[in-house]
């Protein structure tokens, strides 16, 4: 390695490692990521628990507290049964509409419901409110109608129309996932139990984010470093000490050292969390497929070099950090689909979209590593993806070198799209 490259590497890596931003990102980002996932899991668990409780005990639900009394004129004789868990004074029956209206006008009740005698054929219910009458409807309640009353009324009608509790459960939730075994046409590799699947899903969601941020952070460090040297005019002094290409190589290597340090910290933290998670859940530890780390490192290096070379070219062309940032966000877009379709990587690993994303060079680093984290990937796909990525990386580095020239680096003119064409031709 040339001495100057080593000096640039040492200088640029130290410069990043000395910034508080780097350490904040290194430690805060994983905490945020894990926190967000944990929060989402807790919310999911609570929702499924509530849904399960409702489904399993459909007749024993509790009425909301502090519910005002509802007047009822039941000309259809629908409401015959009453859950034990409901307060007895929740519904105040009236013999006819006139009596209910009188009670409403006397402020004894806030509203009343009239179930007409032809409800079973017409399906209409009239709701009257103290303040105004909204509408009559066959299915829904008025906007001003207390949604808790709607829930009570719906529940009462349901349980009185359907005598069998199991029927009601099935009517409300015809395909209850908790009782249905899914049999996919293209099933994912079998895991030992439900907890393994949960961990796999977490890994499939987290891996694209980690790769996205690793590539984004690493390459944006590089772009910012190039732009900063342009802005503070240091590049003019540097170009008298070493050729632009050596400067480019030194910078890319420097940020790769930074990325490796960041990855090492995240991997150590990730391993710790997975281990602790396994202990807390009392399940076997989540293990990656053999060779996963080797493949992951290869994809990370190639992916980083690809995006870093792009960002170096962006830095050389951009006139300011702001201008570089705007261009950067456009160029980083190919990494987003992997995050958007993260669920698919766990549920449908052989879907055409999953396959396309893992073979397309710009999305391959995060997509393929996500698949690798979840299970075995056919060797031919792995090799094809990595070969395509390596070829594209080589192409991009060659192109970046065309833009990383003295005239671009010393230019203070704002970037114009035609500059790309000029740089390409040069």
């Amino acid at each position, binding site marked *: 390695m040339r001495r100057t490259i080593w000096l640039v590497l040492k200088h640029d890596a130290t410069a990043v490692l000395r910034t508080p931003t780097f350490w904040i990102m290194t430690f805060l980002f994983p905490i945020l990521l894990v926190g967000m996932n944990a929060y989402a899991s807790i919310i999911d668990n609570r929702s499924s628990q509530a849904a399960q409780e409702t489904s399993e005990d459909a007749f024993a639900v509790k009425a909301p507290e502090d519910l005002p009394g509802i007047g009822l004129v039941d000309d259809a004789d629908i409401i015959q049964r009453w859950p034990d868990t409901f307060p007895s004074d929740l519904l105040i029956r009236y013999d006819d509409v006139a009596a209910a209206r009188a009670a409403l006008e006397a402020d004894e009740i806030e509203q009343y419901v009239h179930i007409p005698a032809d409800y079973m054929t017409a399906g209409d219910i009239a709701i009257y409110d103290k303040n105004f009458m909204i509408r009559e409807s066959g299915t829904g309640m008025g906007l001003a109608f207390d949604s808790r009353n709607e829930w009570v009324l719906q529940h009462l009608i349901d349980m009185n129309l359907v005598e069998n509790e199991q029927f009601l459960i099935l009517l409300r939730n015809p395909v209850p996932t908790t009782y249905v075994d899914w049999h996919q046409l293209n099933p994912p590799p079998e895991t030992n139990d439900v907890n393994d699947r949960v961990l796999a899903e977490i890994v499939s969601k987290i891996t694209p984010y980690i790769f996205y941020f690793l590539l984004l952070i690493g390459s944006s460090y590089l772009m910012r470093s190039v732009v900063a040297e342009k802005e503070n005019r240091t590049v003019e*002094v540097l170009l008298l000490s070493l050729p632009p290409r050596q400067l480019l190589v030194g910078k890319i290597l420097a940020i790769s050292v930074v990325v490796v340090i960041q990855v090492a910290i995240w991997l150590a933290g990730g391993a710790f969390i997975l281990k602790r998670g396994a202990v807390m859940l009392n399940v076997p530890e989540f293990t990656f497929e053999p060779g996963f780390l080797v493949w992951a490192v290869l994809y990370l290096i190639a992916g980083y070099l690809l995006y870093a070379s792009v960002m170096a070219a962006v830095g050389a062309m951009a006139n300011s950090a702001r201008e570089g940032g705007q261009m950067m966000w456009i160029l980083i877009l190919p990494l987003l689909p992997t995050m958007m379709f993260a669920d698919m990587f766990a549920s449908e690993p052989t879907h055409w979209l999953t396959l396309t994303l893992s073979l397309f060079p710009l999305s391959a680093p995060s997509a393929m590593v996500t698949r690798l984290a979840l299970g075995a990937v056919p060797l031919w796909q792995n090799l094809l993806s990595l070969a395509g990525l390596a070829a594209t990386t080589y192409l991009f580095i060659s192109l970046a070198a065309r833009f990383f020239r003295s005239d671009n680096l010393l230019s203070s003119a704002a970037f114009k799209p035609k500059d790309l064409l000029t740089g390409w031709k040069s």
Partner: protein
Amino acid sequence: MHIVEVSHLAKRFGEVTAVADVSFTIEPGEIFGLLGPNGAGKTTTIRMMMDIFRPDAGEIAVFGGALDMAKKRRIGYLPEERGLYKDQKLEPTLVYLATLKGLDEKVARQRLGEWLERFDLAEHRSKKVQELSKGMQQKAQIIATLLHDPDLIVIDEPFSGLDPVNTRLVKQVFEEQREAGKAIIMSTHQMYQVEALCNRIVLIDNGRSVLYGLVNEIKRDFAGNAILLEGEGDFATIPGVLETRKQNNGTWHMALELGVDPQAIFRHLAAQNGTRIERFELAEPSLDDIFVNVVSGNKEDS
């Protein structure tokens, strides 16, 4: 051997001609002034000379030939816009730049200590560059230029931001470098500094060399056929003098007849009884005047 030899240099950026035809040479042990109005092509010429830009036409020889990386490391460059990492500490920044020039890190630290002491920056070595005053940053930039002991020193507006004390210090440093045999190219708009330091200049205007040579000769060439005189006596009727005029500062300005040698006037005055001469010199214009005359003359021509 010339340290730098530039011949008919030309460079265009798209439709703009930055340098049209510039030629000059620089010798060891001289301070050479590269002068010109804003946008004349000075910085582009410097960048081409240092192989940062490739010229479209012309020849450049530095240290006797094309500039390779080994030769580049023998150059110290002080750009007009300061080229230091503002968010980094002074000492590591200067050591980094010196080591990139091939200097051993240990030697760089040792030399840096001496320079920091001399420029009164030792106690600021751990400060970030952006925390230093403008003058301190300029001194730091000068140290970065000289730390690796270059043979060719290129300085663009070296006195920018410096107070009179530090200006004197920096001038003294450049004089020492010249005495040590180093070649210095100085680009500045401060003409009195050029008069004080440079022995030769080139004046570039609209991308072309319009004035080139020894400062004294150029001044003499631009001098009118006149003398300045201070003293006492009868200066009204001197043979060969067209007009005698007393200026506000008490100096006599004498316009001579065409072809009259000023030395003949001096001999005539010296031979007169009752005449006291305290100052006798050719009435040369200042470099500032020459600069303005040439540049404004070029504007009128164009």
